């Protein structure tokens, strides 16, 4: 097997990880599987593309790739904005749809509502941008030797540094800050958290915002590495769920680890079996976890 698998797998794992953290947090705190999470990723990618196009039209030269990268100043500036917008989308969806069903209906009808929302957002994006793939940049990137015979394009190297930093940031946020403590408290026991003075509603909004922002980051990564298309997030949904369940629902480090395993598995499958079978890896991982240890790596058996 070509060691290049490691570069591809790590990149793939990082972008799955950014999405899977959002899935695992919403799941553990709101107690439902959000099928619209993939669309947050798609939305984030398209929003970034639009904002970057706007910025580079306003500021001459900001649309050019920086140094060896295809990533432009306009793109870098638009990422935080797009993360904020995607967080806004998640919050809007929550207040329009999910909040109305919380506590009232069976938890599973929230899942169904998220499934309907997923379909509607995706088709809406397809309506606005058609299904033709789009790109942040048309620059051709040439892979440069890294070490031990590994090669990576400048963009890939940048992402290999930025994505882990982002994930470490999330981990610190969840483990070292008051916000993270409230999130964990609400996921353990909402009633008890409320009694202890945690603002449960605010915590729920924070979880949506965090999940949406990270999904946008994942979308930008996917757009840089592959392409931007209306189904990009939906096709990533099964890997996200597989990573979250493999890691143990509710555990952010578990989701990172699960994402890394799914990501590396997909990269190996592309090399050993064929790129067309890539999407099957997440399904096999999911079935294997359910057969062997349904609570996941970091989860406690129920």
């Amino acid at each position: 097997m070509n060691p290049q698998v490691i570069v591809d797998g790590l990149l793939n794992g990082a972008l799955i990880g950014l999405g899977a953290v959002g899935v695992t947090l919403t799941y553990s705190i709101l107690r439902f599987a959000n099928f619209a999470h993939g669309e947050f990723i798609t939305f984030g990618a398209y929003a970034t593309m639009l904002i970057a196009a706007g910025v580079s039209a306003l500021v001459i030269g900001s649309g050019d790739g920086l140094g060896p990268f295809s990533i432009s100043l306009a793109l870098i500036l638009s990422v935080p904005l797009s993360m904020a917008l995607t967080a806004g989308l998640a919050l809007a969806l929550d207040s329009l749809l999910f909040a109305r069903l919380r506590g009232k209906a069976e938890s599973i009808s929230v899942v169904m509502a998220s499934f309907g929302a997923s379909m509607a957002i995706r088709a809406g994006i397809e309506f606005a941008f058609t299904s033709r793939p789009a790109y942040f940049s048309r620059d051709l990137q040439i892979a440069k030797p890294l070490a031990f015979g590994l090669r990576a394009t400048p963009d890939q190297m940048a992402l290999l540094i930025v994505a882990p930093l982002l994930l470490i940031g999330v981990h610190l946020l969840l483990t070292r800050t008051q916000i993270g403590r409230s999130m964990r408290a609400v996921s353990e026991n909402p009633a008890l958290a409320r009694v202890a003075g945690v603002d449960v509603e605010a915590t729920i909004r924070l979880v949506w915002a965090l999940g949406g922002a990270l999904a946008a980051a994942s979308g930008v990564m996917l757009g840089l590495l592959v392409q931007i298309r209306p189904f990009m997030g939906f096709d990533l949904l099964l890997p996200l769920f597989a990573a979250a369940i493999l890691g143990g629902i509710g555990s952010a480090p578990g989701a990172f680890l699960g994402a890394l395993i799914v990501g590396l598995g997909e990269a190996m499958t592309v090399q050993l079996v064929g790129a067309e079978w890539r999407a099957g890896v997440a399904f096999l991982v999911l079935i294997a976890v359910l057969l062997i240890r349904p609570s996941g790596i970091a989860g406690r058996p129920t």
Partner: protein
Amino acid sequence: MSFDLIGPIAYASFFLIMALINGIVCLGLNVQWGQTGLFNVGIAGFVAIGAYVSALLTTPPGDGHLGGFGLPVAVGWVAAMAASAAASAFVGALTLRLRSDYLAITTFGVAVAVQLVALNAQRLTGGAFGVAFIPRPFDSLAQTPVLYDLANLALVGTIVLVLYFALERLARSPWGRVLRAIREDERAAMALGKNPTRYRLEAFALGGALMGLSGAIEAHFIGFIAPDDYLSSLTFQVWAMLIVGGSGNNLGALLGAGIVWALWTVSGLLISDFVPAGLEARAAALRIVAIGVLLATMIVARPRGLIGERAMVSRHVEEE
């Protein structure tokens, strides 16, 4: 019969047959969700399993893919039900003991996996080209299209009627009552000595069998299947049908199938007639947005659907 009636009759019977085939999936989903509360997001996958199993068993030998056993259509249909039921039972056995979302996620995975196999296992499924020359019931009548359509309509209509009465009877049977008891209060049902996992597994497999049957019937009516027929939009359509019609109610399932299929067909006709060719894909996307919004609005505003579930008692009580 005057000649200009043939077109409308052919069209009406084609529409009805498709609506009834959708009605069968919807009845299957009603057993799973409406009566038992099991969430299936991979309907398209279970329909596809039925369609492919029946097609591969009944097509004439040797057209580039495995199978082609030339078996009778009825054998194909029974095998289709068995295969989809087995796949459902497997998924159920893995997930029904866990949280309800795990079932949803796994069924979603099944749909992805089935789509992948249909598309890539060329030797088995014909790949993107699909399977053609699927034998059609009443093919000998194909010379006179009206007779052919009416005969098929009668066949599918009879199947739906039989299924409807069987499912209604089942819903009133002790088995159906246990299902609803588990759905409403699992602990109480367990206290009465019922094993929720077993009942749920049975209901999930029964629903899966109906989905497989509907896939097989459609495959044999159209005569051709391809992976594109079983995308997630199909799953979504069936959900819209059941939620609009009224989950928990078999008549509601059939009514919803008719209404949503009519909306789908009419909007499709309008798009192809009035929308300029370059914008058709966009209009089709907008149609899915509309159904998505309809589904989400129904869930929030009228979760019971048009005709919701009725209180159901044993038929022995009603007879008194």
